C-alpha cells in the first residue's frame, strides 16, 4: 500500500482524538446506550437486552424522581438568586474599597479554593444539633434553648444545604460582577449623576444594565454546577433523613450503586442533563441579549 498517506494535520490530531474518544465519547455513548437496557451491575448480561424507552417511561411516572427533580430546581433557583444578590453586594462593596482591594479580592476567592467535600464536612459540623457552632451561637445569644435539628428536619436541612451552597459559590458571582464593575466606564455614571439621578437610579438605569451580562455569565456557569450538586449534599445529609433532601444526583447515585440499577440511573442522568442544558441555554440567551444591549465588544 503505497501512495495515499493521511494528511499531516489529521495525523497530528489523531492521538488527541483517540484519547478524547476513550475517556469522553465512548463512556458517553455507552451510558446513553445502557439507559435503554435494564442493566444491573450485579447481572452484567443484562447490558445486552434492549428495552427501548421503558426506563424513561418509568422515570416519568416515578414520584420519587419528580420530587428530587423539583427539589433540585428549587435549590437551583433559590441558590442562584441568593448568590446573585450577595455577590452583587459584595462586588459593589469591594469596588468601593480604596485600599486593600487586592487583598479583599483574594479573600473573596477563598471559598472557591475549598473542595466541596470539605465544605460539606465543615457545614455538617456547624449545623450539627449537639456540637454545632450554629446551635451553640443561638443558645449563647439566648435566642433559643433547644437543640435545633438542622440536618434532620426536611426544610431545615434544605436550608442548611442552601447555606453551604451559597457560601461556597457566592464568590463566583462576586468575582465576575466585580470584573464587570471594574471594566465599566465611569463617565456614564457621572453623566447620570449630572442628569439628576439619585444613587439608586444611577444603579438601576446605568450600572445594572452594564453588569447584567456578567451576572448572566456567572448564572450560566453556576447553572451547570448546581445541577451537579452532589458532593455537599452527599456529605451533609446524603439525601436523608428518609430522602427528605434527596436531589437528582444523590438519587441517581443511589439508584446506580446502592440499588445497582445502572440502566435506570443512566436514564435519570440524561433527564437531569437535559434540565441543566435548559438552564444553560436560558441564561445564555439572556446573556447575548444583555450583551447586545450594552453593545459589548466581546
Amino acid at each position, binding site marked *: 500500500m503505497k501512495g495515499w498517506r493521511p494528511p499531516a494535520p489529521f495525523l497530528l490530531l489523531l492521538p488527541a482524538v483517540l484519547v478524547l474518544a476513550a475517556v469522553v465519547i465512548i463512556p458517553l455513548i455507552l451510558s446513553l446506550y445502557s439507559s435503554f437496557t435494564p442493566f444491573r451491575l450485579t447481572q452484567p448480561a443484562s447490558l445486552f437486552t434492549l428495552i427501548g424507552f421503558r426506563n424513561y417511561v418509568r422515570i416519568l411516572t416515578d414520584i420519587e424522581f419528580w420530587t428530587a427533580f423539583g427539589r433540585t430546581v428549587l435549590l437551583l433557583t433559590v441558590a442562584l438568586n441568593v448568590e446573585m444578590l450577595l455577590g452583587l453586594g459584595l462586588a459593589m462593596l469591594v469596588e468601593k474599597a480604596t485600599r486593600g482591594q487586592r487583598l479583599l479580592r483574594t479573600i473573596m476567592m477563598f471559598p472557591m479554593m475549598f473542595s466541596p467535600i470539605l465544605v460539606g464536612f465543615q457545614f455538617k459540623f456547624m449545623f450539627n444539633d449537639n456540637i454545632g457552632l450554629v446551635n451553640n451561637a443561638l443558645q449563647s445569644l439566648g435566642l433559643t434553648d433547644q437543640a435545633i435539628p438542622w440536618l434532620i428536619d426536611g426544610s431545615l436541612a434544605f436550608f442548611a444545604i442552601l447555606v453551604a451552597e451559597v457560601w461556597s459559590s457566592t464568590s463566583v458571582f462576586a468575582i465576575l460582577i466585580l470584573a464587570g464593575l471594574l471594566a465599566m466606564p465611569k463617565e*456614564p455614571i*457621572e*453623566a447620570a449623576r449630572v*442628569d439628576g439621578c439619585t444613587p439608586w*437610579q444611577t444603579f438601576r438605569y446605568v450600572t445594572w444594565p*452594564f453588569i447584567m451580562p456578567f451576572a448572566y455569565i456567572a448564572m450560566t456557569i453556576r447553572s451547570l454546577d448546581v445541577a451537579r450538586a452532589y458532593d455537599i449534599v452527599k456529605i451533609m445529609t446524603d439525601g436523608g433523613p428518609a430522602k427528605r433532601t434527596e436531589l437528582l444526583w444523590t438519587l441517581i447515585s443511589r439508584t446506580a450503586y446502592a440499588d445497582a440499577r445502572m440502566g435506570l440511573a443512566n436514564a435519570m442522568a440524561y433527564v437531569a442533563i437535559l434540565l441543566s442544558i435548559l438552564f444553560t441555554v436560558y441564561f445564555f440567551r439572556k446573556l447575548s441579549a444583555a450583551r447586545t444591549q450594552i453593545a459589548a465588544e466581546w
Partner: protein
Amino acid sequence: MATVSLEKLVKRYGSLEVVHGIDLEVADREFIALVGPSGCGKSTTLRMIAGLEPVSGGNLKIGGRVVNDLPPRARNLAMVFQSYALYPHMTVRENMGFSLKIAGQKPEDIAPQVEEAARTLDLTHLLDRRPSQLSGGQRQRVAMGRAIVRQPDVFLFDEPLSNLDAKLRTQMRVEIKKLHAKVQSTVIYVTHDQVEAMTLADRIVIMRDGYIEQVGTPEDVFQRPKSKFVAGFIGSPPMNLKDAEIADGQVVFANGDRLPLPARFRDRVTAGQKVTFGLRPDDLYPAGHGIHSGEDADVHRQDLRVILTEPLGNETLVFSDYAGAEWVGRMLNPRRLSPGEALPFCFDLSQAHLFDRESGRTLRG
C-alpha cells in the same frame, strides 16, 4: 438663569493641592472659556462646579446659592463630557430623554422635547440607533442634545470637540455658538484649543498650575496680556518672547543686538532692568507685507535673514534669525522666499510688549 461664583475655591487630593483658591464671577448667560495647558486644573474646576468632585475649600455659588455640599442633581446643570459619556444601552432617543424621565415627566411630554432638540441638531434620522452605531461627530451631537433637552441653568463643556477632526470641529464650533445665542444659558467651556476660546467666549479665563492668570475678553487677553505666560499661550503662532536688558533707553538682547525702547514703556523701566521682550508675528513682517503700511513712527526697520518659511496660502509664516534667536513673522500677500535670503523687516514697536523677567508680569500700566 444663573450666575456662577467661585470664591477662593480650593481642590485638594489628599495633601496635594491642585486648585489654589481661585475667584471667578460668571454672569448670567455669559459664555466663559477656561483655557490653559494640560494639567492646570480646568477639568477639576469644572467637575467641582458640576458636583462630581467635592470642594475642598472656599465657596461655590450657583444663582447666589451656596452649593458646595449639594449633589449634582440638585444643581440643575448639564455637562458634555470629552468622551461624550452616552449611555451605551440606550438609543439616542432614550439617551436624550433620560434626564426628563428621571425628573418624572410623562413619556408623551418627553417625546416632543426630544424631537425638537433632535431637529435642532439634525439627529432626527438617528433617534433609534444606539451610540455604538454612530460616528464620533454624531455621538458628540447626541451628547449636546442630551444637555439641551434638560434646559439647565448652566451648561458645562469639557473639551467637547477635541475628539473630532479639524473640519467637523470648525462646524460644531459654529453650531455651539448658534446654540448659545438660541438657548441663552450660562456656559462654562473648557478647552485647550485657543481658537475655540477666542471665537466662542464672551470672556476667557486662562489658568496655570491651579491659579487663574488672567480673565478678560478675547481682545483683552490677546492685546493686553497681563503676563508672559498669557502672551505666550494666546495667539498662534505664539508671540516671540526674548530675554533682554534695558540699557541706554534701548532694549538690548543677550548677543548685543538692540531695538529702540517702545514709546509706551519709556517711563516704566529703569536702566539695567532685566525684561522679556514680546512681539506678535503679526507685528513682525517683511516691509510692504504687513497689516500696517510700515510707515508709522514706531516701526523699526531691520534686515533679517530668512531661515525657513511656512506658506499657508493667503499668508506665509517667516522664520528669521535675529538677536541670536529665531523669530516668527507673518507675511501677507506672500511671495516666494528662499532660505538664506535677506530682506528688510518691520518691527511694529507700538504693538510690542515688555514683561518683567523675574515675575513675568507686564510692565505696562
